[in-house]
C-alpha cells in the first residue's frame, strides 16, 4: 500500500532544500549583516586548523553546534551531516584496525574528523542563514567579480526551477519506462534502474534549461547588467543597503571571546594530545 508521506519523500527533500537555500526558518545568524556572517564563518573555518588540542577542538565544536541549533538548520541537512559524521567515525576505527594502528593513530584521525566536523557545522550555520540576495550582496562587497555574485543569486533563482524540471522528467520515466520484471537480488535491478534514470534525466533537463536561459540572457542585457559591470554606481547603491550595526559587532566580539575561552580552557586542561 502506498501513501502520501510528509517526510523522507521527494517533495520533502525539495521543500527542505528550498528552506535551506532561502533561509526561510530565520534564526540567530539570519538577522545579521551578511558580511559579518561570512566573517564569522571564516573565523570558525580557519581557527580549528591552528591547534591539535582536543579540548580546544571540542570547545569549538560545541560553539558551532550551538550556532547550528540557533540558526535552525533543517532536519535534512543535519541528518546528512550526522550520517556522514558517524560513517567517518566508523571508517576511522576500521582504517586504524586494518592498517595495524594503535590508539594514537585513532586519536590523530579522530582529531582530524573533529576539525572537519567543526568546519562543517560552521558552514551549515552560516549558509543556512544567508538568502541568495544577502549572499550575493556580501560577495559583491568583498570585491568578488560581478559575474560571481550574480551567478550565485541566479543559481539560487534557478534552484526551484531545476528541481521542478528534474522531478517532472523523472516522473515521465516512472510512467513510461518498461516495468521491472523483478527487483533482483537485494533490489539491484531497482538500484540500476534508478541510477540509469537519473543519468538519462540529465539530458532533457539541460536542454530544457538551456532554452529558458536565452530569454534570461537577453533580459539581463536590456536591464543594464553589462552596464553595471562597467559603471560603479549600481554597486554603490546595492551595497548602501548593507549596514553592520552594534549587534553585529557584539556578535563578532562574542564569537572571538568564545574562541579565546576555548583556547584558555584548552591550555589549562589539555586532553590527550594537549602536549602538541
Amino acid at each position, binding site marked *: 500500500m502506498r501513501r502520501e508521506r510528509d517526510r523522507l519523500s521527494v517533495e520533502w527533500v525539495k521543500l527542505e532544500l528550498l528552506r535551506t537555500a532561502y533561509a526561510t526558518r530565520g534564526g540567530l545568524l539570519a538577522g545579521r549583516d551578511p558580511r559579518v556572517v561570512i566573517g564569522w564563518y571564516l573565523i570558525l573555518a580557519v581557527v580549528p586548523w591552528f591547534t591539535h588540542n582536543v579540548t580546544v577542538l571540542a570547545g569549538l565544536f560545541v560553539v558551532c553546534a550551538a550556532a547550528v541549533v540557533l540558526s535552525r538548520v533543517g532536519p535534512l541537512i543535519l541528518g546528512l551531516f550526522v550520517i556522514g559524521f558517524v560513517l567517518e567515525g566508523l571508517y576511522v576505527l576500521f582504517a586504524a584496525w586494518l592498517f595495524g594502528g594503535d590508539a594514537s593513530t585513532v586519536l590523530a584521525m579522530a582529531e582530524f574528523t573533529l576539525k572537519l566536523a567543526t568546519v562543517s557545522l560552521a558552514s551549515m550555520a552560516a549558509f543556512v542563514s544567508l538568502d541568495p540576495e544577502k549572499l550575493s550582496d556580501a560577495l559583491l562587497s568583498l570585491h568578488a567579480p560581478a559575474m560571481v555574485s550574480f551567478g550565485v543569486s*541566479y543559481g539560487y533563482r534557478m534552484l526551484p526551477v531545476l528541481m521542478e524540471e528534474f522531478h517532472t522528467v523523472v516522473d515521465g520515466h516512472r510512467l513510461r519506462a518498461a516495468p521491472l520484471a523483478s527487483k533482483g537480488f537485494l533490489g539491484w535491478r531497482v538500484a540500476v534502474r534508478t541510477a540509469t534514470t537519473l543519468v538519462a534525466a540529465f539530458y532533457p533537463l539541460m536542454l530544457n534549461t538551456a532554452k529558458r536561459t536565452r530569454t534570461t540572457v537577453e533580459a539581463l542585457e536590456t536591464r543594464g547588467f553589462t552596464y553595471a559591470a562597467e559603471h560603479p554606481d549600481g554597486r554603490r547603491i546595492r551595497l548602501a543597503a548593507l549596514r553592520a550595526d552594534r549587534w553585529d559587532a557584539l556578535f563578532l566580539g562574542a564569537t572571538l571571546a568564545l574562541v579565546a575561552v576555548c583556547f584558555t580552557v584548552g591550555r589549562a586542561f589539555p586532553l590527550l594530545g594537549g602536549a602538541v
Partner: protein
Amino acid sequence: MTSTEAATGPGPADAPAVEVSDLAFRYPGADHDTLRGVDLRIERGDFVAVVGGNGSGKTTLCKTFNGLVPHYWSGTFEGRVRVLGRDTREVSVGALSHLVGYVYQDFGNQLVRPTVRDEVAFGPVNFGLPDHRERTDEAMELLGVAHLADRFTWQLSGGQQHLVALASVMALRPGVVVVDEPVAELDPARAARIYEVLEDLNRRLGTTVVVIEHHAEYVARYARSVVLMADGAPVWHLPTRAAMDRAEELERHGIPAPQVVRVARGLDPAAPPPLTVTEAADRLRSRHPHALPPDRRAVRVAGSEPTGETVAELAGVRHGYRGVGGDLSVVLDGLDLTLRDGERVALVGGNGAGKSTLLRLLTGLKVPREGTVRVGGTDTRTVRPNALADRVCHLYQRPEQMFLKDSVYEDVAMFPRGRGRTDTDTLVAEVLDRVGLSGLAGRDGRLLSGGQQRRATLAVGLATSPALLLLDEPTSSLDTASRDAVIAMLDALSGTIRCTVVATHDMHLVAEWAGRVLVLDGGRVAADTDPAGLFADTALMESVGLVAPEVTRLGLALGVEPPPLSVPELVSRLGGIPAEEVGERA
C-alpha cells in the same frame, strides 16, 4: 539627471514612438530575410497590436525596437529604426531600455532576482539611478504588486509573475512597452487583467503600448490600431475598426476575426464591425427589437442519465501539499467523481482549484491523503504508477517536458517497446502518421514548433493505447490554426480512447469539444454539467473566474436560451442565414 538619462533623454518631442524605414534583417546563418522592406510608423500614445501568423516576423520586428536586433542578434541589418527620435544603431541596448521596455512571452524566464522588490529594482540599480527607490515603489504601485514586494518570485502565480515582469521594465519609465503574447500562458481572467493594466498605463502615463497577439478578441477590445505582418513585412497598419472590417484578410493570415464580428457579418455583411460584446448586443437589439423567443429546436439533449461503464472513480478524496512554511494547503477535499465510457470531460476552475492535482491522482503518481482513487477498478494505492500507465496517459501542460529521448520517434516508441510490444514499429509509424508528424520523426521534439510539439505529445499518448487520456491545457500558447488542429485531433480520438479528460481555461475548447463539464471549486466538484449549462450559470462562472466565449456572452445578452456555443448557431437562431452556410466552426 544622470549621465544615462542625458545620453538617452526623451528625444525630440515631436518624433513618433517608433519609426521604421526600409528595414531588412537576416539572422546569421539563415537563408532568407526575416524582415524585409519594413516601413512602419507608430505614434506616441498609441496602443498597437501586431498580428500575423507564426513565422511572419512579429517578434523579430519588436526586437528591433529595443535594439536587441541588431546589437545582440548580429545579422545583416539594413535600413533604419528610430525610437522616440533616436537611431537604434547609435544607442546601446542598455540605453535603449530607458526608452523601450520588453516583456517576453516566456516572462517567467526574464525574472532574474530572488525577490519581487529586488527584481523591480534591478534595472534602476544597475544603471545607478539615484531615485531607484522611488522608481521601484512607483512601478510596483502602478502594477498593483506592492503587496508582493518581499515574496520570492518563484512563489508567485503566472499572472503575478507577468505583472512583476511588467513592473520591472516600467521601473525604467520607458516611453514604449512591448508585450509579447500576454495571453499565451495565462488564463482568460488574468490575461484580461494584464490588458486592463496596459490600457491604464497607456491612458494615465501616455505610454505607447505594442502587443504581439494571436487572439483577435483582445485586439478588438483594447488596441487602437493594428499592424498585420506577413512574410517579414507589414501588410497594413490601420485603426482597429478598419482592421476588423477586413475580417476575411485577417482570416487568410491565420487570425480569425472575433466572434462578435463574425456574428455581425453573418447577419449583415455590410455593417461596420462591432468591437465588443456590449457594442454588438446594443446593435443587434436595435435590429431585432422583439424579444427573442427561446428556440425549441436548439435545445440540446442535456443531462441525460449517464449509462457508460465506469472508467475511473474517486471517492471522498482529500489531498494537499506542504508549503515551504510547513503548512498543509488542502487542494481537494471530499471529492467524489465517476468518469464513464464515452465521455469527453472538460475540467475547469480557477488557478489552484486542483485540476492538475486531480489529474496526477488519476495517474497514480500521487496517492490521496484520504479517500480512494480507482482506475478500471484498481485502487491506485495498490499498484505502482507504471502499472497504471497501461490504462492512463497524462499529457503535461508544457509539451517539452514530455520529450525524454533525442527524437520524436524514440519518444513515441519508448512506451510500447518497454512493454515488449512486437509491433512497436508499425504502431509508431501509424500513430505518427495520424498526428501528421511522419516527416519529422527523426527530429528532437524540443526543436519543433509549439503546435508540432503538442501533436508529438499526443502521439506519445496514443502509443500507450490508454483507456483514460488526461490532458493538461492542451491548447495553451498555440496560435489559432494549431489550436484548431489539436481540437480536431481530439475529436478524432473518441473512437480509440474510452474517456478523455481535459483540464483547461480555454472556453472555446470547452464550447466546441466537451460533452461534460466539471467545475472544481473549494476542493470539490462545484458543478457537473454541460457547456451550455456552464455558460448559462453566470454567477458560477464569475465565482470561479471563467469568461465564456464572446458568442455565448452575446447570446446571453440578447436573451437567447440556451446560450449558443458557436457563431453559426447564434446566426441561424437570430434568423440570419442557416447555420450550414455561415461556416463550420466558431
